[in-house]
């Protein structure tokens, strides 16, 4: 194994570069090093001006999403040796405005998230103790509750690339996380947004989001499942007069 690997990192500083340029750095190639360790080596020892987000370096905070050799990944959970002998091309996540270097603006997602009401909705007061929920009931939504908001799915989504108004994979998965929770009664409140043209119906079922997801959330599955629900509701709306629904 060679002892270094070349990282080609996209640089963009507003006011300094008109558009992103690549800068090459040689970093040590070590078995344990994630792509993020390579970036940290650059920042600490070679070029302090490189900007990127990271925090937990254990694949759970969702900060460190980047495009590495063309694919959206968590840079703290993707290893340099997987790209040996290199070079490794590191770019910001796609489909988001670039703020600076590898930092993207996720404001669009943060603004959309509340629109699908990802919180538990009930009309009644909560019980003295816990709401009962069996392990099977928990399993119904568990996978959709695993989303770390890392934005890899948005970066992979060809629909979002063309139509930035699309609510998008993670937000829909989070809506489903509550819709399918036995304690929740808010499905009707989420219906308008989810079954709008920018909701599930915008998705042409490409499935790239589920492939990209590092946490097994399967947003494509959430979208498909909601399409069935929405179709059933549409049919009911058509067949039944208002009061009978």
């Amino acid at each position, binding site marked *: 194994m060679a002892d270094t690997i070349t990282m080609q990192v996209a640089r963009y500083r507003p006011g300094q570069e008109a558009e992103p340029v690549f800068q090459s750095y040689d970093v040590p190639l070590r078995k344990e090093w994630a792509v993020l360790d390579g970036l940290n080596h650059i920042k600490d020892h070679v070029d302090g001006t490189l900007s990127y*987000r990271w925090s937990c370096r254990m694949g759970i*905070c969702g900060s460190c999403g980047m495009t590495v050799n063309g694919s959206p990944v968590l840079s703290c959970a993707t290893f340099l040796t997987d790209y040996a002998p290199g070079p490794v091309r590191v770019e910001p996540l796609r489909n988001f405005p670039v703020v600076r270097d590898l930092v993207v603006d996720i404001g669009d997602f943060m603004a959309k998230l509340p629109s699908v009401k990802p919180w538990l909705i009930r009309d009644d007061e909560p019980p003295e103790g816990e709401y009962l929920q069996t392990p099977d009931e928990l399993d119904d939504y568990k996978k959709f509750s695993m989303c770390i908001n890392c934005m890899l799915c948005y970066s992979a989504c060809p629909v979002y690339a063309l139509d930035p108004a699309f609510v998008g994979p993670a937000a829909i998965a989070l809506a489903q996380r509550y819709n399918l929770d036995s304690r929740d009664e808010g499905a009707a409140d989420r219906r308008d947004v989810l079954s709008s043209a920018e909701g599930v119906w915008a998705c042409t079922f490409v499935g790239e989001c589920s492939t990209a997801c590092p946490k097994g959330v399967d947003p494509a599955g959430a979208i498909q499942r909601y399409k069935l629900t929405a179709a059933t509701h549409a049919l009911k709306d058509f067949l039944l007069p208002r009061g009978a629904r």
Partner: protein
Amino acid sequence: MSTFHNVVVVGGGGAGLRAAIAVAEANPRLTVAVVSKVYPMRSHTVSAEGGAAAVAGPDDSLEEHLYDTISGGDWLVDQDAAEAFVQEAPRELLRLEHWGCPWSRQRDGRIAVRAFGGMKKKRTWFAADKTGFHMLHTLFQTTLSNPDVVRYDEWFVTSLLVDDGQVYGVVAIELATGRVETVIANAVILCTGGCGRVFPFTTNANIKTGDGMALAYRAGAPLKDMEFVQYHPTGLPFTGILITEAARAEGGWLLNKDGYRYLQDYDLGTPTPHPVLRSMELGPRDRLSQAFVHEHDKGRTTDTPYGPIVHLDLRHLGAEVIDAKLPFVRELCSKYENIDPVKELIPVRPVVHYMMGGVHTDIHGATSLTGLYAAGEVACVSINGANRLGSNSLPECLVFGARAGQAAAEFVTSTRTAPGAAVYAQARDAQRLLEREFARHAEGSHIGGRERIADIRTEMQTAMENGAGIYRDGESLAKAADRLRDLRERFGRATVDDRSRTFNTEAVALLELSFMLDVAESIVVSALHRGESRGAHQRTDFPGRDDERFLAHSLVRRTPDGGGLVDYMPVKITQWPPGERVYGR
């Protein structure tokens, strides 16, 4: 530019979000802001794995949770605070359930609880082994439903605004633009988390740089019990990623290089095939980490490029238990060590994990400065004393986050002291000063020589590990203090190459380093003064606990020349006089 909110919460982790909700609930007419250097759901609470303790079953009692907490903390726990804590923890965890937290369940649908280190009963609520992740996202999503909570995401707080001993807001940099802003307030709640990054090998995320501790310290509030730093016995070598205590609670064993369950040699009980509470692998963290050092001294650990290790053995649990209860452990081992714990041993070593000390508060989260509150890992109430029990910290964030939120809301509602002209003047000064700093770096005009931020940081971390690690003595601490003084001097020459205002992470690293140097100094000076061994503070030159002199909290105050002045305040004892800590017998 400056904005105004009645209450500003600094930090969007478990403590900060809970505090913000509490303010909004206490008085809906108050405006509340959450200022956080990362998006709230990225806060370090997200990494917590094992669980959150609160009495749940009929076979358990508040008394027992209280006793475990007090003895676990080697009697440095304030018993009135711990009483409030054990009493309110169940209600807080239940509220999280009502907000949707996906707690793991028993077959009949009720909450499930698991064993945890130092706890005599099973009382740790868990959401598989991603408890903190689920708690944080539940809290965050719940705050989304509350439009009264205004967020300032990716704003980095650089100082507190203080006028005549009262705190009136914060100065912050909006990272996306580099603009210096002030948020004026009637009260500020610090919820900025811990400071593990002061050490080289830690489970703590990159953001845990002790900012809030330094902010309060600089503003004149004392820090309490800073000498008590918790090492967790089971971190993965190199990364420092935590293998949760839940792995041992489910039945994992710690083995030395001969495959021997060495804890039996350290007065922690006798090995049994199934886990026994408060015994062996379920002893408290301080004792387990200390046992590791002794094993190492006896030559019974295994050397690796990333330091000596022992092994955690989960193989006998089988794939089914591991996948149901510890799926994240399996995921982390496979990703970061390329091993499968179903079939292989996990290499582990002690790793800096948690700060027992912090900003001194009363049981309502009030600090010594009017208008300043603190909760979560940044604060020291103290319910953790000389050693925190695993799974007490997440509920602490909720209980004392809520208490601080309520107290701040009451304070603002009843007093309504408005920030005066002096505050606005100070805000403008602070803004100008920071602007000038930025400009100075932008011109590249540095007085004498250049120092790299990373070099100073690494040397600080090494000094802390060597001088103030699991075992320390007067000499090692004095040496660390000297090193820190040198480093502070060199810090004056540290340079920022990044001239951009947009998302300047190098400037952030510089500010974080300056906070960490303060925190490191406060740890070392507090440790130097405590001439005894208690819990996580083990002095080889003072091997015994000394209740006569040191059954007391240390308080360190910053002196004008930047040093720390230490004095002591009594521990509150309501019903359990100090006794022997007994595990495994």
